[in-house]
């Protein structure tokens, strides 16, 4: 695989730790400078372009951003589930549980999937095989990874269905997905993900396809089982409300890059990047009752035609000349581990900084969280 070669060649320092060395024991997943490109007919799409973040053991991290910003591709790259080609992991490292997994042989990676890293997909309606019973599908991976016989596999399936609050699991294992409601199926997906007690749970928009009442139940459930099993959770969503409830740390992505990262409280109450500010402003809230919802103007730039400077520049309300030519770096802001990718936080942006964050404090951000 191409990843092996490229990873070996990388010698630059990415993020905080030098490349090629394992992170500390307390870090379960450490993604460093990950670059995933897609080679398609119209050119190359840099879907993930230098993304670095880490998930502590038992910790929760939310990956937030608009559609097509690279959230899901990041997750699929970590799982190594992308088709290569057209995808190519151009650079970066993914350390999981003390091992660099981008270079692992496919066979070992297969043992990791489902067993140590489990994934919950967006569409519970289509993520279950319509011709297999629910029990077959759960026990399939249990038997695969834990090397147990059919009977024990089914027993485990029943057990994990019970864990996720499905009544009558002994009957349910014999049913087919089409005999269940959407909420039930998402529970089955969660049961499936949990059946091997993974160390990391990646949930890719687990509630997007469900109606709001069921969303609430599923999120509560996810939180509850995550706390009980002490597995780490990486939650991918475009819903800031969901991350506010669920995660400790937030990573905001835009056009394949991280634009802001920090603790949930930092990012949601003191957003330092105009994009994050826009996202938060566009949320409906009780205090903004009656007014029009604000939205970020424009659309995500075409991946074939990214702006030369800051990728958010064409849509940014605070843009100035330098933004259109200079590409900002992800730099520490505020001194408490929060980082943002905006020229406002460089010396060049210093004169404008006060004005921006004052207006933000008086109009936009106040709408949600006051100062």
């Amino acid at each position, binding site marked *: 695989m191409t990843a092996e070669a490229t990873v070996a060649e990388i010698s630059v320092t990415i993020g905080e730790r030098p490349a090629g060395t394992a992170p500390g024991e307390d870090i379960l997943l450490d993604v460093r400078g990950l670059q995933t490109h897609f080679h398609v007919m119209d050119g190359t799409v840099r879907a993930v372009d230098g993304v670095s973040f880490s998930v502590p053991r038992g910790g929760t991290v939310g990956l937030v951003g608009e559609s097509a910003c690279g959230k899901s591709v990041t997750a699929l790259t970590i799982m190594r589930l992308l088709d290569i080609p057209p995808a190519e992991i151009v650079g970066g490292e993914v350390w999981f549980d003390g091992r660099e997994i981008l270079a692992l042989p496919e066979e070992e990676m297969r043992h990791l999937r*489902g067993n140590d890293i*489990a*994934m919950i997909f967006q569409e519970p309606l289509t993520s279950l*095989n319509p011709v*297999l019973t629910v029990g077959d599908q759960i026990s399939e991976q249990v038997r695969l990874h834990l090397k147990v016989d059919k009977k024990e596999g089914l027993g485990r399936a029943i057990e994990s269905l019970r864990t996720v*609050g499905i009544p009558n699991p002994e009957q349910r294992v014999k049913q087919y997905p089409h*005999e269940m409601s959407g909420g039930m199926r998402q529970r089955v997906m969660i049961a499936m993900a949990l059946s091997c007690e993974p160390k990391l749970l990646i949930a890719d928009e687990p509630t997007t396809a469900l109606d709001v009442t069921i969303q609430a139940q599923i999120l509560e459930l996810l939180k509850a089982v995550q706390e009980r099993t002490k597995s780490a959770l990486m939650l991918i969503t475009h819903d800031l*409300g969901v991350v506010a*409830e669920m995660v400790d740390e937030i990573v905001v992505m835009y056009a394949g890059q991280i634009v802001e990262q920090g603790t949930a409280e930092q990012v949601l109450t003191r957003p330092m990047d105009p994009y994050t500010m826009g996202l938060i402003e566009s949320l*409906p809230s009780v205090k903004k009752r009656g007014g029009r919802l604000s939205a970020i103007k424009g659309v995500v730039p075409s991946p074939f035609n990214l702006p030369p400077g800051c990728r958010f520049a064409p849509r940014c309300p605070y843009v100035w000349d330098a933004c259109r030519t200079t590409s900002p770096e992800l730099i520490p802001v505020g001194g408490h581990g929060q980082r943002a990718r905006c020229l406002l936080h460089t010396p060049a942006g210093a004169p404008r900084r006060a004005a921006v964050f004052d207006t933000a404090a008086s109009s936009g951000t106040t709408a949600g969280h006051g100062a």
Partner: protein
Amino acid sequence: MAHEAKSLSTPTGSAPIDVEADAIQAIGMGIAQPDDATALRREEAGADYEVALESLNQWQLAWRKFRHHRLALMGLGILASFFIIALVGPIVWPFDFNTIPQPDVIVYQGRPPSLVHPFGETGGLQRDVLNLVINGARTSLFIGFSSMALGVLIGTIVGSLAGFIGGVLDNVLMRTVDVFLSIPLLFLILVASRFFGNGNVMLIVMIFAFFSWMGIARLVRSLFLSIREREFVEAARAVGVRDRRIIFRHILPNAISPIVVSASLIVAANIISEAFVSFLGFGVNPIYPTWGNILSNALTFIPLGNWWWPFFPGLMIILTVLAVNFVGDGLRDALDPRTRA
């Protein structure tokens, strides 16, 4: 400030996760999910009465719908009885097709249907037409079904390799299919059965299979291409399932319905081809009766008014092909997921 931010969250309320919540949801689905609702109501009622929670797999569901397709059921009945006749008939029917009652007597007129010979007797060696038709059914049905089976096997393997692996292999295999499709099949079959067939039934089966797998290959490839991208395949990969298992356990069962339907149509086509090729004298060795051979032998006697000789084997061909097509039609309706109740 943090808790202010949390108040933004719309969906995350505090609904308790318990049986009741789901019961309400399931009951809310009403008629659409009767199984859910009854199961959960029973649970609520403390299970003091037992309602069977019946789960049907795809074949049971298909059969439930197939049963209501009258023509398909009729077709299935006709096919089944032909099979039984082909298997048991030669044993039960008093005339053996190898024994010729009066080998030294050659008549110019056959005899029309009578009580002893319900399908009449042939001219020439005075053989019992029913006896010929029954023995012909063996060969004709065998050729029709086994060449289909072999063709579908080849087509499924080629199609699934092309669809699942893709890339260069896909290109090579599909161009091979194109080449096969661009050859005028009829003449090729005639030439091939003359050069390789020599009237041997197994060789005829292989020739037919060898020239009837392309449609299935294209179909299976397209099915694999689309099913491969379905989320449950990705989900299976995400839990570490091997490729081999993904092909056989996750993709193929989902592709089986269209394969079965088009396989049934291939049977009809192959039975007709067999009759046609044998009629032209390029098929099964003419001393063995197949429906096509009987027709071919009857040819010279048709001007003499011996209508019963070609009529009955011809009728069998028509009935079989119709029956197979009706069954195919019924299968298409029964297996189509869009009409699944």
